[in-house]
């Protein structure tokens, strides 16, 4: 069995499917995240609304990104905070 596995590793092709599976999983994460521009804009607007309740932010410099490294996909919302708002109870 040991020899068998050893020989297989060295003398036969094999295991290119592991690469295929990994690549496929990555591709699908991106594909599935692909949302229309309208949706992204809408989401950005809502995130800004929520954050603005607590912080004063520089809305000109905010950035929304989808990144991927190794096993993780992340939605990154980047914004400079100018100052925190005083924590008075919200009334709307």
């Amino acid at each position, binding site marked *: 069995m040991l020899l068998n596995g050893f020989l297989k590793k060295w003398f*036969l092709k094999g295991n290119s*499917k592991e690469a295929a599976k990994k690549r496929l999983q990555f*591709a*699908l994460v991106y594909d599935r995240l692909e949302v229309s521009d309208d949706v992204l804009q809408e989401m950005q607007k809502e995130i800004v609304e929520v954050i603005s309740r607590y912080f004063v932010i520089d809305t000109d410099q905010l950035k929304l990104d989808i990144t991927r490294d190794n096993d993780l996909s992340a939605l990154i919302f980047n914004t400079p905070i100018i100052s925190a708002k005083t924590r008075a109870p919200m009334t709307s």
Partner: protein
Amino acid sequence: MQGRIIVISSGKGGVGKTTATASIGAALALAGKKVVVVDMDIGLRNLDVVMGLENRIVFNIVDVIRNKCKLQQATIKSRRIDNLYLIPASQSDNKDAITPQDMVRVSKKLRAEFDFILMDCPAGIERGFENAIAAADEAVVVCTPEISAVRDADRVIGLLYAKEITSRLLINRIVPIMVERGDMLSHQDVVDVLSIDLVGLVQADEDVVVSTNTGIPLVMQENSKAGQAFTRIAMRLNGHPDLPIEVPRAPKSLWGRIASKIGFGK
């Protein structure tokens, strides 16, 4: 009678939609159901030749929709299997010749006439796809164990889901010896990434080509592995959803056979 409409789809071209439609249709009819297969690949018809009915075509689905003929006139009876019918695509029009609303209208009549209506979808996700899925109750999504085909299947499953159509997966052209060696995605790998129910596994089989050459249905070729797999898929669609999925295996080498006889190996 209220027939079920099943669309056979894939996104990617050439993965076996037409082969699957013809074979599952034939198997359902052999099981006693009244079946019509509809070629929705307007402009690139193929289902007629795969079924050996190409020289019987007078009218087609576009003629039906344009009221140039009655539904019955465009419905061709199989020569070999009772209860099996084909509505061919038009070869001279393009996909815009019909609309999803047209399909919903025609499908009402089809449901009243047949137990099963199988729609052979064209490749792609444009108008032809929309027409083919317009009236579907459920979907069989076909892919091969390759990155591009699986990825396209994922997209199509998503689009079908958005239309509230549930998909089941058919993996076609599996080469068992490559799977065993680790050079082809296994069905389990594909199911892992797509997280969807399987309806069946079909291996690459020379008999598919022979069947297309002769027009004799694959499911009538007794020793065809692919034919047997399609017959089991038809059974799963026809009231036996729990029929176990058989995984295609590579034929064992002489030494492998001897080893398993005397109790070594698996």
